[in-house]
């Protein structure tokens, strides 16, 4: 078997030079070059490193990349090929990959994208649709010989159209560590976003918000067109606590697909919620008083967030095109001083959008994220000035978790997935991808068991009745 493997590598050696002169994004071919390099490296003991764990193996790889990129600024980089020729499982490979990603995310000279869709049958599958936007492509291979396990790492420069760096690191992985890596319940501390829980939900769920009370209990508000159901989280499950029936009045625009946003916040001594949707031109303001929710006002737009301007609270939001599935081309601001009174609304021009969210840090509006009707992502400043128009098509759902993370769905119905971006620096840095078995209906930021992340409502495709599941994707700290 080993001989057969060697033969295939020798075959790769024969075609090496033809390969690299071909198209720059021909990954299959470039990989042959990598295996050749690894073969060469394997025969030189001087390149071996006496390491003792997977983590140090990855750390060494990351160190090598740090040195390589130290004189380069914000190099757009991603792993585009990862193969496993060791006895480690696919799961272990995913963990090793995540560990490497976590290390690279912290490198200031690297703008790393996480393109891994999944790892199966010894091979990683990557989303290569946006490779043209990258500067460097990384190829990884895990290899095992009699006593040691090695990681081969090659860097391909798209601009120079050649391999610019090759590294092979070897270490001894004991059986215990291998078992540890292969076990399902293991997670590296810096792993990316993953699905932490999943619930069945009834049809037409439009949004979820939560609020923690003084007794440290978290209440979850599930927003449906005709009611809001309030749940209490108990040991990994949700228990219905109460519900609030919503009474809408004319004009009411019947819709094919319900969409809406809910906002829950404490205001002075009261708990206030606002609920709006694409079926009504007004959002309801409900205040919790005497153990019941009372409608105290109506607002002419759908509030998304509460923000501070000059230390004064405002509601910021958008307005749906009545009866349709997108927002009008304006963003609305309203001073919020009294839950029972309307203030003058200030509107600012933006653009019609399938999805909008506002990133808010410590009450301050940081930016506006939107996906227009052409499925292009736009990042706007707090003044709604265009900051970073995207080029690639994005899905029609997004949500911002404070000023830290942005989750966006894919531009596809059959193979939906989630893209998580780091927005802490004000930009958009892709860091993780999660596969979704269904179609994303909406994404909203939230918390689950003290973990911040995103609620994702998914329409399960194989069920004609429209079965919906609700997932929580979080990044354990």
């Amino acid at each position, binding site marked *: 078997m080993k001989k057969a493997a060697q033969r295939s590598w020798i075959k790769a050696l024969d075609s090496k030079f033809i390969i690299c002169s071909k198209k720059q994004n021909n990954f299959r071919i470039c990989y042959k070059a990598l295996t050749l390099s690894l073969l060469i490296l394997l025969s030189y003991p001087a390149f071996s490193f006496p390491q003792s764990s997977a983590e140090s193996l990855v750390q060494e790889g990351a160190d090598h990349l740090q040195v390589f990129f130290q004189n380069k600024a914000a190099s757009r980089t991603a792993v585009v090929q990862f193969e496993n020729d060791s006895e480690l499982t696919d799961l272990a490979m995913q963990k090793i990959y995540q560990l490497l990603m976590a290390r690279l995310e912290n490198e200031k000279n690297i703008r790393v994208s996480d393109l891994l869709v999944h790892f199966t049958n010894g091979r990683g599958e990557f989303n290569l649709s946006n490779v043209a936007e990258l500067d460097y492509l990384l190829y990884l291979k895990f290899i095992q010989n009699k006593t040691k396990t090695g990681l081969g790492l090659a860097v391909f420069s798209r601009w120079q159209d050649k391999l610019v760096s090759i590294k092979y690191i070897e270490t001894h992985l004991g059986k215990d560590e291998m078992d540890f890596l292969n076990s399902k319940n293991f997670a590296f501390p810096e792993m990316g976003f993953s699905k932490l829980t999943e619930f069945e939900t009834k049809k037409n769920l439009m949004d979820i918000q939560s609020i923690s009370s003084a007794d440290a209990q978290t209440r979850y508000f599930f927003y449906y067109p005709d009611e809001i159901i309030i749940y209490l989280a108990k040991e990994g499950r949700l228990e219905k606590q109460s519900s609030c029936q919503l009474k*809408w*009045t*004319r*004009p*009411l*625009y*019947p*819709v*094919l*697909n319900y969409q809406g946003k809910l906002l829950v916040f404490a205001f002075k001594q009261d708990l206030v919620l606002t609920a709006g949707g694409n079926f009504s031109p007004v959002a309801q303001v409900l205040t919790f008083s005497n153990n019941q929710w009372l409608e105290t006002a109506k607002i002419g737009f759908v509030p998304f967030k509460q923000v501070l301007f000059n230390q004064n609270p405002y509601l910021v939001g958008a307005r749906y*095109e*009545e*009866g*349709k*599935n*997108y927002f009008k081309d304006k963003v609305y601001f309203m001073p919020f001083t009294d839950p029972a009174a309307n203030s003058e609304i200030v509107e600012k021009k933006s653009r019609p959008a*399938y999805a909008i969210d506002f990133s808010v840090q410590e009450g301050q509006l940081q930016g506006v994220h939107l996906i227009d*009707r052409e*499925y292009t992502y736009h990042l706007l400043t707090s003044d709604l000035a265009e900051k970073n128009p995207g080029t690639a098509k994005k*899905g*029609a*759902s997004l949500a911002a978790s404070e000023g830290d993370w942005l989750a966006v*769905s*894919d*531009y*596809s*119905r*059959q193979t*939906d997935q989630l893209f998580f971006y780091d927005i802490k620096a004000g930009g958009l840095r892709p860091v993780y991808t999660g596969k979704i078995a269904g*179609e*994303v209906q909406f994404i909203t930021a939230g918390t689950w068991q003290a973990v911040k992340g995103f609620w994702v409502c998914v329409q399960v495709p194989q069920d004609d009745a429209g079965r919906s599941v609700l997932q929580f994707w979080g990044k354990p700290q």
Partner: protein
Amino acid sequence: MSKLKLLALPLALLLVYAIKPYYGGEISMKLNEPTSFTLNTANYSNLILYSLIYENFFYLQKDGAITTHVFEDYRYDAGGRTLILTIKDNLSFSNGKPLSAKNIQVSLKMFLGANLFAASKLNRLIKNIRADENQIRIELLADDPAILSLMTAPELVVLAENEQSFSGPFYPEEWEKGSHLILKANPFYTGGRTYLDAVKIVFSDDVVPDVFLSSPKSLKENYQEFDSGIYQNIYLCFLQGDIGQNTKIALYTLMKKFNEVTGFKYKELRTLTSDEESPVSIQIKTISPQKTASILKSSDIKLYILASLSYLEKDLTAFLKGSNLKIETLFIDDSQMMNFLNSTAIKYVLIDKIFQTKIAAEEKISRILKESSFNQFNVKYLRMLGELDEVKYSNSQELLMEQIARISETIINDGFIFPLFQKTYSMYIHHVWQGVEVDYYGRPLLQKARKTND
């Protein structure tokens, strides 16, 4: 196959599944020009047109399922022999005026008063109709849980008090007579606003429409055929007892000649329903052109034609002019027909009826008897209908056929209706449109229609 082509296929599939339905766009349909927006479902073209602006109480799907957009809930209370319909909250007509339980009650009563077989069947069952705040309670004379199926008639629609209000997915916005009619999406449509912004109904053949009606199996490239088994029969009716047999035959011969000179656009009809299912064949002998001319030359004939046949106007007028006969054609709206009958001595009428192949022959013959006998309807016919009902429940196909044959013979012998022509239809929809469903009556449901690449 080149790599490029191999890649293009999944890419195309991916584009089909863009994540959100696109709101916007216009679909064009070639239909006959209406005379007004008063409900008229006499022919297939009208059946489609009026389904776009009037919402049915219930829809009968192709698979027999009954659905509704108007009612939140409907249930039959067997104990109280009452059908309870609960209307959805906060519904509105196209102009924003409230659509209430009262509107439902009035619409149902108007339907029951119409000269329709489906209405008379329902009428026989209903004791009273009451409207509460958001409920309509239909109390029956006898227990009949199947009442809901009678309420799927295409003519049972939600009507507004105001003529400018519409309950359907679209409402008329602009009508350029002889050219086109623009229907705009109703923002308050009870079933949820359509993805389409508009439907353009074109009346001429100047443009290639997205949807049109034509004979079945007319192979049209890029179009999907929906053959719902719809056919249209045209009859010549004589509504006064003093019309001589010779005049009837002469006028019948003239109409046959008209079909011949216009290129046999219609199939000859020798039964009251369709030649394939009728137990009897009706042979009416035509006479020579000379004899026809000599009989009709001294007559002063006013031939009333239902507005649903208005598309015949041009050809028929030219034909009659060429025949040098004093025959005046007058087009009359179906809804005004009964009023005209009471006020005017209408003698000659050209009418049409559409039928669905799947509907039982006894149902069709009942419809003809009830809807086409006009002022000639009498106790004898009522008795025949009663007998047909009885035979229906005897489970004897032989007896049933005998009764149908007897009714057909009686009608023809009484001489008030002569079958003339028949035309079968399929609906063709361009492949670029997806999400178009077709109901039991062959009507396109455009609620979720959108272009493939949107």
